[in-house]
C-alpha cells in the first residue's frame, strides 16, 4: 500500500513509499494487512507534516478475507492496529510512526493544530479517539454507535463534531471531555427514512469557517449546511437530495447512489460529485452513455442554486463514487475515486475566471 501524490510538474502521480514496510507491519506477518487509508489524511500547516492513519480490511496473506469481529481475540490474525505516520512534505521523508488504535482501523482523522491533537474514529467499535502529538499518547473517549461516521470536523471553539448512526450530531467538547448527542436529526428523506444510517460521508468547511456543508453516507444522500458556531445545537439546513429520485421500495446499491468530494473552489462556490444512473422509470437517460455517471455540481452558497459543471470520465471504468475533493494552489479541482482497480484521482481543470491563487487556503484540517 503506497500513498500517492499528484505531481504537477510531471502531471502524473508519485507513489511515495510502501507504508506497511515503513511501519514495520509487513504483509507476510500472518495478521490482517495494512491495506488502505480512508478519510485519514490531515495536514499540519506550521511544519508541512502530513499525518496519515491506516484503515483495515486487508486479509492475512493466507486468507481470502478478514473480519475484525471474528479475529479480535486471535493474536496471530488480528490487525495490529491503525498505523499513524508523520510525513514531512517539505523534505519527502517519514518522520515517525506510531500505532494510533490497537486492533482497529481509523475511519477518519482530524488535526486540531492549535491544540496539537489528532481526533479519530475507530473501526469496527466506533470509538472516539484522541491522540496527543506531543506526548504521542492516545485516549479512548468511548463508543458512539455502530456505523462509522466517515468524517469529523472542527468548529471555531475547537469542538469536534461527527454523527451517530441514527442520524444525530455528536459533539466532543474539550472543556467537558464529553461526547454529547444532538436532539435533532441530520437531513434525510422523511417520506420513507427514519434518519438511520444518516452518518456523515463528507464535510467541507466554508471559507469563512462559519458553517460546513455535508453529505451523508446513506442512500438518497441529502446535502446540508450546518452552523456549528450558533446556538446550543447547530442549525441544520436541509439543502435537498444530492442525487436523483428512485424507487424507495427497494434498497439501492450504496455504490450506486452516492455523493462526496465536497470542496470550495477559488470562485467561492461549493463543488461536489453526485452519482447519476440510468433508471427505466426515474431517469431513462436516452442514448448510449454510461449507466453510471459521476456528475460534478457547483452550488452557490448565496442563492443555493446548483448547476451541473461536468462529468467525470474514466477511460475504462466508472466514475460515480467520489470519496473526497480538493482544490490545489492553482485553483484546479481534484477528486479521489474508488470503484475501479486501481483507485484513482480525477483532475478537473478550472476555467481562469473560477481560479484563484492559493485557493486551497484556509486548508481543510480533516480527511
Amino acid at each position, binding site marked *: 500500500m503506497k500513498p500517492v501524490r499528484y505531481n504537477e510538474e510531471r502531471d502524473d502521480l508519485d507513489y511515495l513509499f510502501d507504508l506497511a514496510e515503513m511501519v514495520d507491519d509487513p504483509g507476510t506477518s500472518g495478521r490482517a494487512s495494512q491495506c488502505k487509508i480512508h478519510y485519514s489524511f490531515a495536514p499540519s500547516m506550521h511544519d508541512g507534516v502530513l499525518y496519515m492513519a491506516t484503515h483495515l480490511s486487508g486479509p492475512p496473506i493466507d486468507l481470502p478475507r478478514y473480519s475484525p*469481529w471474528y479475529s*479480535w481475540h486471535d493474536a496471530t490474525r488480528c490487525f495490529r492496529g491503525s498505523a499513524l505516520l508523520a510525513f514531512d512534505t517539505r523534505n519527502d521523508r517519514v518522520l515517525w510512526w506510531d500505532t494510533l488504535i490497537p486492533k482497529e482501523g481509523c475511519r477518519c482523522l482530524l488535526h486540531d493544530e492549535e491544540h496539537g491533537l489528532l481526533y479519530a474514529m475507530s473501526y*469496527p467499535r466506533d470509538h472516539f479517539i484522541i491522540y496527543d502529538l506531543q506526548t504521542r499518547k492516545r485516549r479512548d473517549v468511548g463508543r*458512539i454507535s455502530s456505523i462509522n461516521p466517515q468524517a469529523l470536523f472542527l468548529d471555531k471553539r475547537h469542538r469536534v463534531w461527527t454523527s451517530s448512526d441514527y442520524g444525530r450530531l455528536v459533539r466532543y467538547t474539550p472543556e467537558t471531555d464529553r461526547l454529547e448527542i444532538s*436532539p435533532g436529526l441530520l437531513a434525510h428523506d422523511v417520506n420513507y427514512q427514519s434518519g438511520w444510517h444518516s452518518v456523515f460521508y463528507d464535510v467541507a468547511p466554508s471559507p469563512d469557517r462559519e458553517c460546513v456543508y455535508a453529505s451523508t453516507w446513506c442512500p438518497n444522500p441529502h446535502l446540508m449546511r450546518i452552523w456549528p458556531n450558533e446556538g446550543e445545537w447547530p442549525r441544520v439546513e436541509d439543502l435537498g437530495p444530492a442525487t436523483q429520485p428512485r424507487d424507495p421500495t427497494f434498497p439501492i446499491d450504496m455504490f450506486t447512489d452516492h455523493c462526496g468530494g465536497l470542496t470550495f473552489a477559488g470562485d467561492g462556490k461549493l463543488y461536489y460529485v453526485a452519482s447519476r444512473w440510468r433508471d427505466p422509470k426515474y431517469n431513462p437517460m436516452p442514448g448510449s452513455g454510461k449507466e453510471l455517471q459521476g456528475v460534478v455540481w457547483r452550488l452557490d452558497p448565496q442563492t443555493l442554486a446548483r448547476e451541473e459543471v461536468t462529468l467525470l470520465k474514466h477511460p475504462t471504468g466508472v466514475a460515480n463514487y467520489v470519496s473526497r475533493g480538493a482544490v490545489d494552489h492553482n485553483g484546479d479541482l481534484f477528486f479521489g475515486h474508488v470503484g475501479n482497480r486501481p483507485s484513482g484521482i480525477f483532475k478537473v481543470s478550472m476555467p481562469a475566471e473560477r481560479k484563484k491563487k492559493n485557493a486551497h487556503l484556509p486548508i481543510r484540517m480533516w480527511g
Partner: protein
Amino acid sequence: MQTKGRFDPNSPQIKAYEKELAHQFVREGTMVAFPMCLPGMTSPITHDECRITALDIDSEGHIYGGTSGRQAHLFAAAFHDLTGVVLDAGVVPDGTSSVAVCCAKSRVLAFVNGARGGRAIAIPEIDLAQDWIQEWGLAPPVLQDLGECVPREPVVHAICDPSRSTVIGITTGHLFTVDVESGKVVVIGEVSGRGHLGMSSSGVFGQDEGARLWHFDLASGKIRRAAVDLPEGEWTAALRWSCGGDTDQLITADAAGHLFSFDENKGFRSLGKAHLAPVGPMAMIPDGRLFGFCGPEMANLFCCDRISGSVSNLGVAASVLEQRRYGYQFGDAVTGPDGEIVFGEDDNDGHLWLYFPKIKRVTRNL
C-alpha cells in the same frame, strides 16, 4: 514490498474459514437490542449515562435496572403483553455506578455508588402493565434515598433473600442487610467485599480472601469466614454467579474462563471452559442451558449445555430487530418468564438485549 495472497480458495481449510465468517454473529437464537425508552415516543437515557450494570426481574416479569456513567439512572422495563417499554425512573443524585438492583416483595431497592458513598435507593412500584400500543398514563416515579449503607465504603453487590423481604449486601469491607419495608440498614459484620453474591438454599455465599468463600447463614444471621474452598483454578478476579437457576444451581467461573457449578452440599463440579476470559454476565434458562458473555472489549456469547457437557462459542452479539446494533460489552443478565434472557449492555448508549435461545429439537416416539 508487494505481497499477494497465498491460499487455495477451494481448499477445505479456506472453505471452513469462509463458513465460520458467515456465522460470526449470534450463531444460534435471536438477539434484539431494545433502546432505553418507549421507542418512537420518548428519548433514551443519555448516551454517556447508559452503561447498564445492574438488573433484576420481579415476579411479574418486569425488569428493573441501573446504569453507570456520568450519572446513574434507575429504570424499569417490560417486554410482554402490550408493553415493550423502558421507563427512566430517574437520576440518582451524585450517583455514577449502579452495582445492584433487587426486586423485593413490596418495592425495588437499588445500590448506587458515587460522590456521596454507596447508597440504597428505593424505586416505587411502577405500573408497567398498561396498553403501550394505544393509550397509557402514569406519573413520573419518585426515587427515595434510604441513605449510605456503610459509611465511606462503596457497595459491591446485593441480592434478595428467598422471601424477598430482606436484601443482603456487601461493601468493600462489610456485610449488611436492608429490611425492604422499613428501609433500615443493619451492618452484620466484616467480610471480604469482592465480587458478586450467590444465594443458596441456606444463605449467601461471597468471595473470601484466598481461594475461598464465606457464608452468611440466613437463619442464624451468622457469617462464617473461609467456609468453602474454591476448586483448583485461577481465582484472582472478582467472582460472578449466574442468575436464573434455582438456588441449588449456582454457576461461576474463574479468571481463565473455567465454569463450575456449585451445590453447597455436593461442592463444585467442572462444566468446561468458555473460549475466552473473563466470563461476564451469565443466565440460565429453564432447560438447564447457561448463556453468558466472555472476553474483553468485544465479548462473545457462549452456551454451556450441562446435559451434553459442551461449551460453545455463539459469536458476537448483533441485533437486526428493533435497533440495528453490534453488542460488545455486557454488565448483567436476568432470565425472563419465557426463558428469554435479558442482557444489560455495559457500553455508551447501552441497550437491553433480549436473547431468545434456539429451541432444541425434541424427538418424540409416537
